[in-house]
């Protein structure tokens, strides 16, 4: 409890400082600052005096701690420890929260009495807070009874005002001030001046019934203003503060100052209401009120119109001088308020928290000092640290006591001495309370009893969590040893609800490879990932190769994530993935690569002309723009080469759609490449000539020929066939065969620029038919093609490369027959590619009719 007193003393001191500052400040600024402000600013001081809160670091906090320390050194408070081994099965009630606590129930059952009388002095110091409290309470009770007596006295001699006019005036003024409560009024010739009593049922007490109407108005306004501003509550708040800080003369001074300011500010508020012009009239009313002399000293609790002549003089002066305050003053007021609020906050108090941080000389000497807690009639010693835990074993508190752990305890590496021996077994109870004890270490090779508790008899040991203990090496040389992490030897003892987690190293290493296999079989990705990280490098390599071979991309990618950085495994696997064109695997591996390594790969991919890998690498290097540029350049180069090639043959290509041959605009332009894999067909209705590029086996242009009419007709027929034929009659071919094709539906929302989408893998044999019927809603160039499964994608078969005509549609319509000489049977992959910009909403189907199935 002295802590509370300390806090209060510090609050008193801080508050006093503020009071001094305010008093001095007000002397110099008296009339310049609003009276209201002067009145209410005290509230901050009162808050400082009443509320024991403050910021962590305060101006005076350090000073208080310093004082505290010096006091502690001068007069160390006697420690009262509950007598160990208290008689009876139930230990004597033990009280107290902190070491500087006392027995609140007096010295009668206090061991102190048995000590020499020298303790009387310290006892007095210990109980000084009681003196403080008694005086404070006494004062408060006295003030309340005086006020009650006063109210009773007023009420007894009063008669209610029955004059309707007076009552009406009060009602009207109350309405003006927007007071909702009906205001009672009475006349009591015993009061010297008008006053207001009652917190919740306000009553204006007038000294006489016939007060001139004008005076009445001011009087009532004044009293109602008091009521409206809740000055009664303020007054009593001040009174409470005075009672609690009765020892502080400055607080008393403040109380008087507030009473003055209360009237000053009330006058100010009234004048603001009636207008400054009426200042003289109002002053006269005050004087008249003083003329009638009352017979009761009523300076407490009630708010009166006037109190004494000296104050009245000042008030009259203030009233006459009152004037509107300038903006500058208002600003100054605001700044002052902030200053005072902050200084109130930072002047600070004696902080209990800080105090506990102060190394208490007594505590430092004896950290094993255990506090106690009473629970359902049983007293528990609270174990919070290593020293206290070890102290149990020394028998300092008694082997038969109840102990309860109150904090996680980390033990030092010092050899642990088990609690309880054969000679002195532990017979009480220990409740681990769910807290942990970590790092229990026993290494003594000769130890015979090994465990947190050694020998316990009829004891209860429970709720202990023992973690990272190391007792494996203890007792190596002992012939006859007893080991139990929690309890080594328990004679009739119960040990339950305990949890033991030995040191990590002590875990029998589980067979990770078999473990990981189990996870793999169980398809448990997260467990697999963890298990993988525990494997050695060779096993990791085996697993990665296995996953790669299985094509298990998900497991592969989590495994790669768990690989050590800069392991050669990544490079090896990348090499493999690159060779196999496994882009997904390669991409995962690339994620683990350093930038420099990625650059190397990029160079290699560009050299190889491997655009897909290049694209990945550019992307990983965050240089995808560069890739786009490069690709564009490449395409441009290709187009230029193409133009040059045609030029050499005498065909001028103005753009993709306009060709000239020998000065004539070309209508049909046909260029079929090797094996029919790639052809350019352009039709320009304005053209006048039809030409055909003839290529040799090496795809070199050997000739440009005018197309014969038959050739043109055949071409047009083939094209119109393409257009007219729909799904139903496709099954009927010229030969009269009925095809039962496998239909590959195509429905792609978007195909990114340059992206080639694999639609499937098909075994094609001679005589099989392939129909393309695909259209794209947006985009300019679309290519549908097959590629041999084991070959690079750029050797294409049965491909259609179509370009959107202005205003036209973008379709890939074609009909191919598999067979020699151009093509051979085998397994092919079917792709759809966006060549020039992205494609949107690609729909249609590809039908593959097997000749074997046709009938």
């Amino acid at each position, binding site marked *: 409890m002295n802590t509370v007193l300390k806090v209060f003393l510090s609050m008193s001191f801080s508050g006093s400082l503020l009071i001094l500052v305010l008093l001095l400040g007000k002397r110099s600024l008296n009339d310049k600052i609003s009276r209201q402000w002067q009145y209410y600013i005290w509230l901050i001081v009162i808050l400082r005096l009443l509320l024991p809160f403050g910021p962590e670091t305060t101006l005076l906090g350090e000073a208080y701690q310093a004082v505290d320390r010096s006091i502690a050194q001068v007069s160390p408070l006697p420690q009262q420890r509950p007598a160990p081994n208290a008689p009876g099965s139930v230990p004597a009630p033990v009280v107290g929260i902190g070491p500087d606590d006392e027995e609140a129930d007096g010295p009668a059952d206090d061991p102190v009495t048995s000590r020499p009388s020298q303790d009387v002095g310290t006892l007095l110091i210990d109980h000084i807070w009681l003196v403080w409290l008694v005086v404070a309470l006494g004062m408060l009770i006295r003030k309340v009874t005086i006020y009650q007596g006063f109210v009773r006295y007023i009420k007894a001699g009063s008669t209610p005002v*029955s004059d*309707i006019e007076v*009552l009406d005036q009060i*009602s*009207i003024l*109350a309405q003006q001030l927007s007071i909702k409560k*009906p205001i*009672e009024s009475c006349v009591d010739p015993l009061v010297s001046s008008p006053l207001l009593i009652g917190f919740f049922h306000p009553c204006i007490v007038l000294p006489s019934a016939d007060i001139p109407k004008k005076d009445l108005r001011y009087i009532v306004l004044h009293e109602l203003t008091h009521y409206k501003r809740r000055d009664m509550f303020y007054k009593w708040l001040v009174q409470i503060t005075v009672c609690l800080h009765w020892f502080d003369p400055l607080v008393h001074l403040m109380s008087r100052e507030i009473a003055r300011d209360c009237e000053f500010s009330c006058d100010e508020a009234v004048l603001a209401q009636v207008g400054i012009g009426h200042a003289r009239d109002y002053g006269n009313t005050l004087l008249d009120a003083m003329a009638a002399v009352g017979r009761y000293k009523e300076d407490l609790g009630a708010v009166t119109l006037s109190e004494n002549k000296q104050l009245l003089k000042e008030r009259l002066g203030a009233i006459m001088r009152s004037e509107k305050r300038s903006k500058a003053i208002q600003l100054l007021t605001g700044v002052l308020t902030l200053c005072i609020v902050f200084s109130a906050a930072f002047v600070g108090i004696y902080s209990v928290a800080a105090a506990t941080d102060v190394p208490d000389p007594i505590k430092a000497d004896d950290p094993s000092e255990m506090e106690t807690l009473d629970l359902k009639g049983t007293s528990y010693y609270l174990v919070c640290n290593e020293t206290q835990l070890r102290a149990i074993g020394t028998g300092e508190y008694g082997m038969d006591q109840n102990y309860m752990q109150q904090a996680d305890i980390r033990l030092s590496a010092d050899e642990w001495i088990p609690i309880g021996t054969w000679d002195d077994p532990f017979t009480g109870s220990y409740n681990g309370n769910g807290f942990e004890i970590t790092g229990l270490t026993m290494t003594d090779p000769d130890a015979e009893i090994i465990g947190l508790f050694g020998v316990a008899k009829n004891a209860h040991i429970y709720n202990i969590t023992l973690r990272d203990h190391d007792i494996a090496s203890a007792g190596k040389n002992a012939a006859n040893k007893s080991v139990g992490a929690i309890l080594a030897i328990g004679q009739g003892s119960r040990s339950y609800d305990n949890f033991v987690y030995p040191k990590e190293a002590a875990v029998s290493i589980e067979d990770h490879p078999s473990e990981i296999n189990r996870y793999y079989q169980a398809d448990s990705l997260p467990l697999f990932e963890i298990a993988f990280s525990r494997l050695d490098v060779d096993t990791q390599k085996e697993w990665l190769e296995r996953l790669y071979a299985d094509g298990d991309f998900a497991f592969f990618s989590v495994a790669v994530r768990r690989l050590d950085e800069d392991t050669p495994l990544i490079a090896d696997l990348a090499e493999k993935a690159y060779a196999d064109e496994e882009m997904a695997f390669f991409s995962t591996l690339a994620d683990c690569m350093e930038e420099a390594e990625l650059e190397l790969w990029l160079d290699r991919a560009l050299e190889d002309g491997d655009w897909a890998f290049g694209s990945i690498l550019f992307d990983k290097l965050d240089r995808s723009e560069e890739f786009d540029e490069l690709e564009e350049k490449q395409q441009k180069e290709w187009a230029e080469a193409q133009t040059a090639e045609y030029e050499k043959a005498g065909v001028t290509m103005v753009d993709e759609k306009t060709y000239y041959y020998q000065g004539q605009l070309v209508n049909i332009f046909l260029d079929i490449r090797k094996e029919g894999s790639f052809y350019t067909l352009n039709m320009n209705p304005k053209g006048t000539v039809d030409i055909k590029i003839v290529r040799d086996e090496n795809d070199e242009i050997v000739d440009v020929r005018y197309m014969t009419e038959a050739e043109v007709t055949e071409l047009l027929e083939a094209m119109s066939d393409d257009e007219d034929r729909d799904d139903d009659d496709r099954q009927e071919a010229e030969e009269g065969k009925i095809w039962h094709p496998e239909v590959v539906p195509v429905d792609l929302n978007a195909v990114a620029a340059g992206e080639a989408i694999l639609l499937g893998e098909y075994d094609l044999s001679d005589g099989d038919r392939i129909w393309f019927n695909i259209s794209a809603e947006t985009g300019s160039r679309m290519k549908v093609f097959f590629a041999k499964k084991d070959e690079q994608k750029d050797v294409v078969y049965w491909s259609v490369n179509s370009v959107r005509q202005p205003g036209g549609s973008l379709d890939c319509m074609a009909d191919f027959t598999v067979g020699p000489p151009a093509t051979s049977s085998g397994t092919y992959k079917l792709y759809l590619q966006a060549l020039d910009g992205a494609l949107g909403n690609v729909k249609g189907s590809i039908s593959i009719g097997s000749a074997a199935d046709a009938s």
Partner: protein
Amino acid sequence: MVQRLSDAELEIMKIVWGDRSEVTLFPYIMDGLAARGKPCQKNTLIVLLSRLMNKGFLSAKKIGRRNEYTALVSEKQYQTAQTRSFLDKIYEGSAKGLVSDLIMGDLLTDEEYEELKGLLEKGMERT
């Protein structure tokens, strides 16, 4: 003992007594006072009504925002009580003095006199 009423309070009580309905409402009293040429502020009336309640003349029942007032002392009771205190104060309890003053002071009309006579005779027969 029935307390004395101030003039303003008596005015209000008269209105309450004059109200035939079982309970009297606030606006009715306000209007009544205005009709008698003695209007007052709402808050004033509230104060006066609460005084009447303290004196035990009225009881109030609050129903929502509406106050219903009921007279606890009837007009007759009040008059009797006041007359008694008047008699005690002025005529030291002698009703004879009062009646003789009424007659001597020419304060009664002839009809009133006859009525009074009749009442006296009836009172004789009762005893």
